[in-house]
C-alpha cells in the first residue's frame, strides 16, 4: 500500500483533499454545521487520514464517511440555542390555552407554509412534533427511527426550520434526507 514517505504520494493526499472538498462541503451544509465548528471536524478527520494513510484503501470514501459521522456526533452533543428558542416558542404558541379558533387556524396555516419548504422527512417529523404533539419516542416509532437517533435528526430538522424562519429569501430546502444512525 502507498506510504507518505515519497513526495508523489504526499502529493496524492493533497490532491485527494482538494478533490473531496465539494463533497465535504455538501456534507457540512446538509448537517448545518456552523463554520467555526466545521474547522475542528475537518481538521480532525483530515489529520486522522494523514496518520492512517497507509492503512486506508479507499481514502475518499473513508474521509466522507468520517466527516459524516463527526457531524452526527456534533448534533448528538449539542443543540443550538437559537434552534432551541424557536422550538420552545412554537411549542408554547401551540399550547396557549383558550386561544380564539381563528388565531389557532392562522398559526397552523403559517406553520404549515414554513414546514412545506423543508425536506419531506423534516416536514413529516415536525408535523408529528407540532401538529400531533408527539414526544421524541413516539416520533421515532412513527417514522421508523431508533430512539437513540431521533434527537439528532430532530435537531437537524430544527436547524433547517430556524434557517427558513430567519434567513432572507425563502429558498426551498433540498430534498436531502437526514440519515438515521
Amino acid at each position, binding site marked *: *500500500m502507498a*506510504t*507518505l*514517505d515519497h513526495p508523489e504520494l*504526499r502529493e496524492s*493526499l493533497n490532491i485527494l*483533499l482538494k478533490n473531496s*472538498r465539494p463533497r*465535504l*462541503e455538501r456534507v*457540512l*451544509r446538509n448537517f*448545518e*454545521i*456552523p*463554520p*467555526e465548528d*466545521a*474547522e475542528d471536524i*475537518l*481538521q*480532525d478527520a*483530515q*489529520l*486522522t487520514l*494523514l*496518520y*492512517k494513510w*497507509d*492503512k*486506508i*484503501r*479507499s481514502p475518499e*470514501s*473513508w474521509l466522507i*464517511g*468520517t466527516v459524516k*459521522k463527526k457531524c452526527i456526533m456534533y448534533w448528538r452533543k449539542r443543540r443550538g*440555542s*437559537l434552534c432551541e*428558542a*424557536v422550538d*420552545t*416558542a*412554537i411549542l*408554547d*404558541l401551540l399550547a396557549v390555552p383558550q386561544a380564539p379558533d381563528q388565531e389557532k387556524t392562522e*398559526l397552523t396555516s*403559517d*406553520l404549515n*407554509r*414554513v414546514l412545506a419548504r423543508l425536506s419531506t422527512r423534516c416536514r413529516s417529523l415536525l408535523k408529528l412534533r407540532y401538529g400531533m404533539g408527539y414526544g421524541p419516542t413516539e416520533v421515532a416509532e412513527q417514522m421508523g427511527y431508533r430512539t437513540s437517533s431521533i434527537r439528532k435528526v430532530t435537531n437537524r430538522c430544527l436547524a433547517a426550520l*430556524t*434557517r427558513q*424562519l*430567519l*434567513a*432572507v*429569501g*425563502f429558498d426551498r430546502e433540498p430534498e436531502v434526507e437526514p440519515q438515521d444512525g
Partner: protein
Amino acid sequence: MDKHPHRKLLSRFGLGKLHRRGNREIVRHLLEDCEECRQVTSRYLPKLEYGTAFEAAQREVESRQAQLVAERVDAGELLRELLAQPFERQEILVTQEGSHYCTWGFCELLLDAAREWGFQDPARAIELARIGVEVAERLDAGAYGRTRVRDLAARAWGILGNAQRIRDDFRTAEKSFAQAELRLREGTGDPLEKAQIQLFKASHFGNQQRFREAFRLLDRVVAVGRRCGDPHLWGKALIMRGFLLGLANDPEAAIRHLSEGLQKVDSASDPRLVVAAQHNLTLYLAESGRYGEALRLLESARPLYRQVGDQMSLLRLRWLEGKIASALGHYRESEELLRGVQKELIERELGYDAALLSLDLATIYARDGRSAEMRRLAEEMLPIFKSQDIHREAFAALFVFQKAAEMERVTLGLIRDVTGYLKESRATWSQRSRQAR
C-alpha cells in the same frame, strides 16, 4: 401583518438573550413571512461558508505531514538501533522520560514489524509488540491527538494479543484484546481500526472453537469492508471464515469462503495472507479427496511461498506436500518431507504441531505395515512430550499411542482418533483456561 417587533428585540432574539415570552412573539411574527424582519434576524444565522475552515485544516495537515514524513525517515534507523540491544535494555530505552523512540512513525514501524514476525517467530513478535505497546502508551497526545493515540495503542494491544494467540497463550491474549477494546472506546471511532481488532479476536475465538462468536465478529468486518469500499478487508474476513470453517470440520464451506476471499484480497499488499489462504485451500481440497485440484493449486502457489519466504510458510508447504504425497501413496517421498519438517518443529518447540505431524508419519507406517519404524517414531516423540505447549490430556493421548506402538497395535483408526483428540483438546484446553480465570 402585525406591527413589526423593535429591531433591538430582534437582535436580542438572534443572540438568544430574549425571554421566553419575547421569543414566542418574535417567532409568531416570523411565521408570517416578514421579509423586513428577516433582514435583521438573518445576520444571526451562522453563514454556511466553509472556505476558512478548509484552509485552516489544510495548513494544519501540511505542517503535520512534514513532521510525520521526518519521523518515518528516522524510524528505520531507530528500529535497527533498538533491536541491537537486549530486550530488557530495549524496554528501558523506550520507557525512559523524553525517549526519542516515542514517535508515531517509529511506533507504526515497530507494530508492522511485530505483525510481520507473528507467524515466523511468535516469541520475537511478542517482544516487538510489547515494546510497541510501551511506545504507543507514551505518545504525546497533545502532538498527535488524544483519540488518534488511543487508536494506535489499541492497534498495539491487538497485535500483541494476536502474537500471544499464535503462541497458544490464550488467557494473556484475551487480556490484551480487552485492553485494545478499552483504548478503542476512547479512540476516533474509526471502523477500520475496530475491524482489525475484530479480525484478531475472531481468530482467537476460532482457536478456542467459539465459532458462533467468531462468525458474528466476521460478519461485522464484512459489513465494514463493504461500507468503507475496502474489498481487501472484506476478503480477509471471508478467508478467516474459511479458516474457521475448516477448523469446524466443514471443508466444503471452507473451500467456498477461501476461494471467494482470495478473489477479493489484494495479493500484492498482503502476500502472507494469500499464501495462508492458498495453503488452507489446498489442505481442504486434499482432505476432501480432490488431489488433482490441490496439486494444481499448490504448483501455482509455490512462487508466492518463495516470495514470502518466511521459514514457517515454507515449512508448512513441505508438510502439506508430504501429506498429499502420503494420500497419493508416495510413501518414501512423503516420509522424507515429513521427517525434515518434524525436526524443525521440535527445534522451534512447536509441540502440538510436531505431535500432529508425527501422527501423519504414523499413518504412512501403518499403511505400509512398517511396525519397526512405528516403534522408533513413538520413542522419538518423547522430546515432544517435554515441549512447553503440550498439556496433560494431550500427554495422555500421546502416551496411549506410544504404548500401542510398543505393542505393535497401532491402526489407522487409532491414529485418526488420537489426531482428532489432539486437535480438539488443544481448543478445549484453551477454553478451560479461559473459564478458570
